[in-house]
């Protein structure tokens, strides 16, 4: 690599390094598997380096990188989609990452926390891709609605509506398990069904 190449590489790293961890987490949320997440992450860095002048002119490289990742994922969904062996009946399999939660001092609390995370993981897996992704982006990874609009191209109103329906669906799924909300059950509101969330979009 020549002097200009070295300079480009250093400039590239300086631009993207602050965003790598969040970008990696986003790749994981899209693909839900480490090999695919690493491939997607790598692909996006290659694409970003190819577009270094464009990247360097941006005020918000993080959102731009996430948008490139989202588009690349959508364009190659067949390659990156959640098609792991266990995805067909994933709801019943304990997730290795959840199994490996760092332990608390209190084994009972630790077991309860792990069980709760497994319940949540199963419920998330039961959502449609659109619902799961909006919850993961907004409520788990902390993307703002406007950022999700910039990344996915969907209007804020659509994103917000989708988020609320996804949360409602999650509450329904988790409410069916008596242990998740620790008995905080409540009877349905009348007409609630008029806003019922379809099982899949």
């Amino acid at each position: 690599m020549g002097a200009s190449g070295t300079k480009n590489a250093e400039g590239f790293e300086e631009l993207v390094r602050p965003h790598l961890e969040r970008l990696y987490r986003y790749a994981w949320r899209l693909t839900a598997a480490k090999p695919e997440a690493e491939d997607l992450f790598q692909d996006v860095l290659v694409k970003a380096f190819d577009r270094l002048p464009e990247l360097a002119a941006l005020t918000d490289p993080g959102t731009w990188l996430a948008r490139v990742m989202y588009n690349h994922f959508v364009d190659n969904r067949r390659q990156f989609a959640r098609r792991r062996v266990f995805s067909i009946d994933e709801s019943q399999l304990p997730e290795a990452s959840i199994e490996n939660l760092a332990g608390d001092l209190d084994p009972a609390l630790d077991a309860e926390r792990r069980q709760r995370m497994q319940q949540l993981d199963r419920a998330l897996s039961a959502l449609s891709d659109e619902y799961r992704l909006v919850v993961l982006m907004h409520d788990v990874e902390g993307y703002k609605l406007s950022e999700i609009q910039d990344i996915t191209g969907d209007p804020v109103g659509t994103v917000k509506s989708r988020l609320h329906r996804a949360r409602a669906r999650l509450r329904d799924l988790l409410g069916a398990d008596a242990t998740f909300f620790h008995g905080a059950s409540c009877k349905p509101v009348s007409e609630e069904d008029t806003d019922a969330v379809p099982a899949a979009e």
Partner: protein
Amino acid sequence: MPCQQLNDVIDDYIDGLRSDALAIDRHIAGCNDCRQRVERARSLQAALAEYARTSVPTPDPAFFTRALRAAVQDRGRRQHTRGWLKGFSSALAAGLVIWLVAGDWIGTHEQPVAAPLQVTMALESPRTINLVFSSATDLSDATLTVSLPPGIEIRGFQGQREISWMTSLREGRNVLPLSLIATSPQGGELLATLQHDDDNKTFRLQVTVTQTTSELAKHQMEYRT
């Protein structure tokens, strides 16, 4: 405020986006159902925040550096983690290989394991085993059946000796993580059978159980040497 109206705005309320939050506060103070509804919504948000902290493994610290270097230096030659074991003539007869590495296997010492496959685990101590299937082509509507020896269980499937999944294999690597627990010391043979159309292939895994984790560590040390 009617209960239905609160139900429609509950997410905005817990997100702090309602200008009429005081009116909602007053309503839920006197309405047990709505109070519980709000508690459940908040409980879900708290659980999702915890999920954020626990559900994505932290990558190897060197991974980012390697990925950056690959992006700027090795374009077109980057090391993807999938797509090995191509070129087999028949997907099931020759193109499926079971790899078995326990625990944190990504990017460490993956090697194809010659039969018989073996794994050792301690009694009543969960262990995650990753069964890695590599397929030369996409396979849809395959059936994967795991048969367990007495005293070995998949967590979440207590008491079941045989568990089947309908699944699809993608070209490349496909992972089935199994969280196993030994409830008795006898061990035995775990069978994983993959069936697609009229073809089937069975992989065998010998499970040995030690009484304690310290005995397991000793066993693993002897196995390496």
